[in-house]
């Protein structure tokens, strides 16, 4: 892996001329099949999986908080991600659901508004799509599909345009208003998966399986990166948020492409890493989920998670 990379770097020209910064080019060279080897050599396994482990801990930890109630009778958190009550005092409500409810013509009680406000403020401040990568359980499914896709060497596929999710978000609200019901919640895999884990699945496994196979076989990163209107909603929230990934040591980049290979939204990296259309090394694109995988897999320590005010380069 590292030898291949260095051979490319040292001028051993690849057979076909593909731009060195394209994912496809890297995939054709077989470089990205197992991204992160270089990083593991440089930083050790734990160093190269730090953010991934933290993220999994967050995802499973939040799930565990919801599950110890029904499983063990320790009621720390009641409800599910749609709306919950923590320790009997802290209400948290998904603002995406409040938006749908209001569009459908129903005004929620104060608890839901307060809970929605808290969640809204959190993601507005810290980073909208933190929800996608640190909380949402569907991320586990789509990450698994992406991992398997890399391991099986499945390339190509047909994903809808990445802007589909924003259109879908708009239509979800339109359809809520038109039908006077939370129409999207009948099919929303995000809430259905989380609710299923806590309250029982029924046939919802089919929808979760559908997403897995869609991402694996049809559209790479298709659900989270192209379709999910809930992710789009949080991306809109995160346009001005504080936590951002910065390619602070981009001068050290050796074009190994590992970050592009693992990134769920690879298009956000280039402007920061290659200074395409911007000077500073911050990834300001709201589609970035701040998952930190790029930080992990980079053997040259190019990336770090910092604030949007830190435009320094080292």
């Amino acid at each position, binding site marked *: 892996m590292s030898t291949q990379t260095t051979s490319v770097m040292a001028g051993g020209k690849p057979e076909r001329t593909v731009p060195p910064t394209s994912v496809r080019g890297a995939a054709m060279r077989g470089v990205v099949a197992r991204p992160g080897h270089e990083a593991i050599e440089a930083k050790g396994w734990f160093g190269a999986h730090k953010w991934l482990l933290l993220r999994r801990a967050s995802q499973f930890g939040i799930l565990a908080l919801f599950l110890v109630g029904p499983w063990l009778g320790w009621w720390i958190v009641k409800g599910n991600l749609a709306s919950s009550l923590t320790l009997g005092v802290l209400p948290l409500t998904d603002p995406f659901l409040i938006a749908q409810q209001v569009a459908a*013509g129903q005004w929620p009680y104060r608890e839901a508004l307060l809970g929605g406000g808290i969640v809204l403020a959190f993601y507005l401040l810290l980073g909208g799509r933190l929800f996608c990568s640190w909380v949402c359980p569907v991320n586990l499914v789509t990450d698994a599909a992406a991992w398997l896709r890399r391991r099986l060497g499945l390339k190509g596929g047909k994903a809808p345009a990445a802007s589909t999710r924003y259109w879908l978000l708009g239509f979800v609200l339109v359809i809520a208003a038109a039908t006077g019901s939370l*129409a999207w919640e009948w099919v929303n895999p995000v809430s259905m998966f989380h609710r299923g884990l806590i309250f029982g699945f029924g046939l919802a496994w089919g929808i979760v399986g559908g997403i897995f196979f869609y991402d694996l076989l049809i559209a790479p990163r298709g659900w989270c990166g192209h379709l999910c209107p809930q992710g789009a909603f949080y991306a809109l929230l995160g346009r001005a948020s504080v936590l951002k990934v910065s390619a602070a040591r981009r001068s050290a980049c050796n074009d190994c492409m590992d970050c592009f290979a693992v990134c769920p939204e690879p298009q956000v990296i280039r402007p920061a890493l290659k200074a395409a259309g911007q000077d500073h090394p911050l990834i300001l694109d709201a589609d970035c989920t701040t998952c930190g995988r790029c930080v992990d897999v980079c053997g040259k320590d190019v990336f770090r998670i910092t604030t949007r005010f830190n435009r320094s380069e080292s």
Partner: protein
Amino acid sequence: MSKQTENTERKGATVPSSRRRFLKESAGVAGGAGLLALGAGMYAKQASALPATAIRPPGALPEPEFLAACVRCGLCVRDCPYDTLKLAELGDGVATGTPYFEARRIPCEMCEDIPCVVACPTGALDRALTDIEQARMGLAVLIDQENCLNFLGLRCDVCYRVCPVIDKAITLERMHNPRSDRHAMLLPTVHSDHCTGCGKCEQACVLPGESAIKVLPIKLAQGSKADHYLRGWEQKEAAGQSLIGDQIELPVRGLEDKAFGDTRVRPGEAPTRTPEYAPTAPGGLDSGWKP
């Protein structure tokens, strides 16, 4: 697209303008997304019919508003102390993730503090409901008179006994038993102005499989009231007298006389009231007593 490329493309007349291409692509994407949302909306509409055995929690808004207000969080389910409520799973036939209960399985125990209503953060369960006896989750209907033991002339009465609003929501109405011609039937009779639809009667019904009395959505259980039809006896009672003067009551030809149930007392006639249900002869099945 940066401004630069846009400008160069605009200069070259052969290249389609990037704006046009953008619009074209957007139309495709928007169309796809719109179709997906339309599909979800139509599915939601067509699947929003609630099965008759699925009962919403107390205080639930009318079904269309309920489906707009419930975010499917399950807090009502968690605060139900009797595990009555559950969230619909995909395939249950109830809107996915919304709370309901099946009376035959676990009925509503009608908690006085109504914790499920208190727990609801979105108003899908209306907090205006503070007295559980005012809840109208459904309406019990004695739907199978062929298998109901009381209708067979037995004294089962279980639905009546378990009713939390006993003697108001369910009463036992005495009827002559025409089969034996010598016994009474005590027929459980539901009154809609008191029945909360808790489903205790449905759960308790002793029939082995399906129960003879079932809680149904009020829409299924009740006809619409004919508001244009004034009930003469109610008008009379309200006014204290007949509004149209005393009516001549004509006998029905062929069915005249007291033998056919004419209970009117003619002028000058002494009221001969026979006690209807008090047996005058010694009891026992073979006493030979006839009403």
